[in-house]
């Protein structure tokens, strides 16, 4: 077990390293740097001005050196620019160069400085990640019980009226993209079109003080889509389990239908959806961007879009590392959980 987790952590580190290197290479392509220079400096800069700006800030040095600095295995640059100002990687605006530490990479806990938000990258990431995390958590808390309930109720008697009704519901919701269901929900519950006006169509306020009124619709929009998907999976797994021979054994032992479902079928039927639910988490992390935009909720997805649009190098690298960690961690959880749910499985 310990070995297994250690191995997975190793894989995680390697993947993060590989991915950041790719992101680093892409963001450091010259056209991207030029764009960076122009957005940071001045849109009317000439070519020579751009290269001077980049030279003064160390952007034109070899890729691996820059990557090493970001990682913290090479000392950060100290460059005396053509304009006479001395700039150091480890001394952001306002700090004196003399006080700056020699190394300031990821290994030292430094995630760099966002060129868009003018703040340390890690601060922004945490803020946005926690906002999205809260949205995700609420959505999952709604999705999982509802989806499992629907899936199990539909799957325990295949072909019954309950099954058909619930299956239709889950097909419809999983076939409706968030940007459609979100708009529909806003129209029904927040606009004067229907006039219900129960909730707010914007979740901007929910960033500081989430409450029932401003947070329901975004959560519902995300949950609806996932509910349909997970419910379909659960139903398929449940119908299969209900035809298994051990269910017949239980029936012919005289176990009542309710107990057959709860005691015999449930655990076996949950094995397959469990993986789907866990894998839903990394999807939600980036998939919420549409919902976030729709309800003006500035979370992790929004951050990613901003960073990518402005070639915010440090920000993008940080976001990549966080994504890798979340994807692989959820996979690790799903593998371990799988072993506990299904006593027959061994991982090798």
């Amino acid at each position: 077990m310990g070995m297994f987790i250690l191995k997975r952590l190793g894989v995680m580190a390697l993947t993060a390293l590989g991915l950041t290197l790719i992101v680093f290479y892409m963001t450091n392509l010259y056209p991207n740097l030029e764009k960076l220079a122009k957005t940071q400096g001045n849109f009317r800069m000439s070519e020579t001005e751009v290269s001077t700006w980049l030279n003064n800030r160390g952007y034109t040095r070899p890729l691996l050196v820059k990557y090493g600095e970001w990682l913290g295995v090479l000392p950060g640059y100290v460059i005396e620019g053509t304009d006479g100002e001395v700039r150091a990687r480890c001394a952001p605006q306002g700090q004196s160069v003399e006080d700056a530490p020699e190394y300031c990479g990821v290994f030292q806990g430094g995630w760099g400085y966002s060129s868009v938000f003018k703040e340390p990258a890690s601060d922004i990431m945490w803020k946005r990640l926690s906002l999205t995390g809260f949205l995700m958590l609420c959505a999952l808390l709604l999705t999982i019980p509802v989806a499992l309930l629907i899936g199990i109720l539909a799957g325990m008697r295949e072909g019954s009226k309950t099954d058909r009704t619930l299956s239709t519901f889950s097909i419809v919701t999983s076939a409706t993209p968030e940007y459609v269901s979100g708009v529909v929900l806003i129209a029904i519950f927040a606009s004067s079109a229907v006039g219900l006006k129960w909730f707010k169509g914007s979740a901007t306020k929910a960033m500081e003080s989430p409450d029932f009124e401003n947070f329901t619709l975004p959560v519902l929009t995300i949950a609806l889509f996932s509910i349909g998907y997970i419910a379909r999976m659960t139903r398929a797994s449940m119908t299969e389990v209900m035809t298994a021979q051990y269910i017949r054994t239980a029936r012919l032992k005289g176990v009542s239908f309710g107990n057959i479902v709860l005691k015999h079928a449930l655990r076996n039927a949950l094995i397959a959806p469990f993986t789907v639910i866990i894998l839903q988490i990394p999807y939600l992390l980036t998939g919420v961007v549409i919902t976030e935009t729709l309800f003006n909720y500035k979370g992790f997805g929004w951050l990613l879009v901003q960073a990518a649009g402005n070639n915010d190098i440090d920000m993008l690298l940080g976001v990549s590392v966080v994504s890798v960690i979340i994807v692989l961690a959820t996979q690790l959880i799903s593998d371990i959980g799988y072993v506990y749910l299904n006593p027959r499985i061994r991982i090798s």
Partner: protein
Amino acid sequence: MARDDNYDGPILEIENLSISFMTRLFEIPAVMDFSCTVMPGEAMGLVGESGCGKSTVALAVMMDLGKNGHVVGGSMRFKGRELTTMSNEELRELRGSEIAMIYQEPMASLNPAMKIGRQLMEVPMIHEGKSKEEAYQMALEVVSDVKLPDPARILDSYPHQISGGQQQRIVIAMALMSKPSLLILDEPTTALDVTVEAGIVDLVKGLGEKYGTSMLFISHNLGLVLDTCDRLCVMYSGEAVETGSIEDVFDKMRHPYTQALFRSIPLPGADKNARPLVAIPGNFPLPHERPNGCNFGPRCDYFEEGRCDAGDIKMGPIEGDQRHDSRCLKFTEIDWAEPIQASQDVEDVVLGEVVLKVDDLKKYYSVSGSAFGGGEGKTVKANETLSFEARESETLAIVGESGCGKSTLAKVLMGLETASDGSVVLNGVDVEDVAIEDRTVETVSQVQMVFQNPFDTLNPSMSVGNQIIRALEIFKIGNSHADREKRMLELLDLVKLPRTFATRMPRQLSGGQKQRVGIARAFAGDAQIVVADEPVSALDVSVQAAVTDLLMEIQRETKMTLLFISHDLSIVRYLSDRVMVMYLGHVVEMGPTEKVFAPPYHPYTEALLSAVPIADTSIEKQRIVLEGDIPSAMNPPSGCPFQTRCRWKTDVPGVLCDKEVPPMRTLSNGHQIKCHLAQDVLDRMEPVIKVSEDA
């Protein structure tokens, strides 16, 4: 409702029961006009081929026919109470408490995600309102009743953690938890090895006597029914065709199907010359293609047009016998004592050159330890020092139970695995290290395989002809498509399938026909060595004989070497020239068939022989039931592999069996055994199977 333990009438009375399955298009009758009575303490056998409706009867008694199944006529009374009109609540009270069932596949019928203890305790908790502690005590007791070691540990394990035989004992224990009046056993040992089967049969018989439980024993194996039952009912295509006491039906059968069934099964006491097999011609009718009148008519030797196909035939009593009935119009006219006609005289084959020589072959696998891949890696010794030769036109049978390494050996011969050590010489070429993808087309076409399950080995979306042509293309036979097509048709002739079958799809064929296609494909490249891995065990009894005969006939024509892998000693006795008995990767005995089947035996062969159920009342056998399970190949016992279960171990002085693997020694003329027993002990052994004098 309280249990009526003082009831003394018949436990189960089924009268003219008819069951149909309703599909969207039409109604499929599965069981028609079925009657039987089970008295208290009586064991009733229900015998027939797959699809004859015997399992449907079993499920009907439980009233668990699914959504589509309906009782469309007749009645079923359990202790005088009508089952067909009971409510769900009433049925639930009966199920598991008064009527219990034991299933064919123990692994599938136990909940994989629930500990065994909980599954057992559930029964008394539901039916008798027992507390958890009481239920646990009862479970402990029953588990030791079914002779499982260390009951507490077993109750705390999951089903996959115990062996197949142990699982079946658990299923039996579960059925016995509430001491039912009627026990339904649906092919309870079909999925198990013979020696394990023998143990289970003994157990069921003993428990039946101890608790006085009535039994409905469903099986396709006549020998097993002889061993366990008092009465028997033979079913064919949804109808009972003959019913009576075991002695009456076995010795004085009065239905042509029963007779044909007996003639198509090999007995381990006889070889192909002493008692030829007679296959039943034709195929089992599908439920919607049943003929008019007698269902068996089209396949019956005594068929009379205008009479047998005129109208429905009722069961009729046989005069002079008690409760012995037959569904045949002509049973008084047929001469039942007429001896079997051998279909043709079989010449003894002349053995040719050695084509396959295996010397000191070893195959080890390594596997990892704990649930998350850590821990010590272990080695599975699948094959240990195998040495044998096979000659042209020879049939070498490889016998052993699951896990003995016989399939691994087949894989190594085919090149699906490469040997860890030793040599395999095929027509003078070393092939032990050559995987199948590196073998020449010639070598590949020389060694071919016939698989156990014909249902899975044919591509379902390719016609029969094309599958054979594909094999011909791979073996580079024929220059043009027309050439190959001609050869394909010849191959169909060889396996006695009509040429029109070339355009059929596999789903349109019956199991026996599919197996014939499999055989045709194996012979596409004029195979010299055919490895047949349990080629008939998935087929029905009446078809087995035909396929077996076909293999032997092709062998006479093509002079191929047949390596016949089987666990069925009866069929091995019937067709093989030499037998190799394997246990835990070792060859424990090898020699000419008649020598292996006669004393002196290797102790394992002796147990194996005694475990085979034989469908003949004139045969007496010694009952040797092996204790415990086959040890794991991951952790084999020290010394002799069989020492943990050997009943002769005490006859070997000292601790020789624990310490040393016995050397292979030659007894006489090619008969070798791997055993420490001294010659005088071996000479004392008595034959396991004896034909009694008065037969």
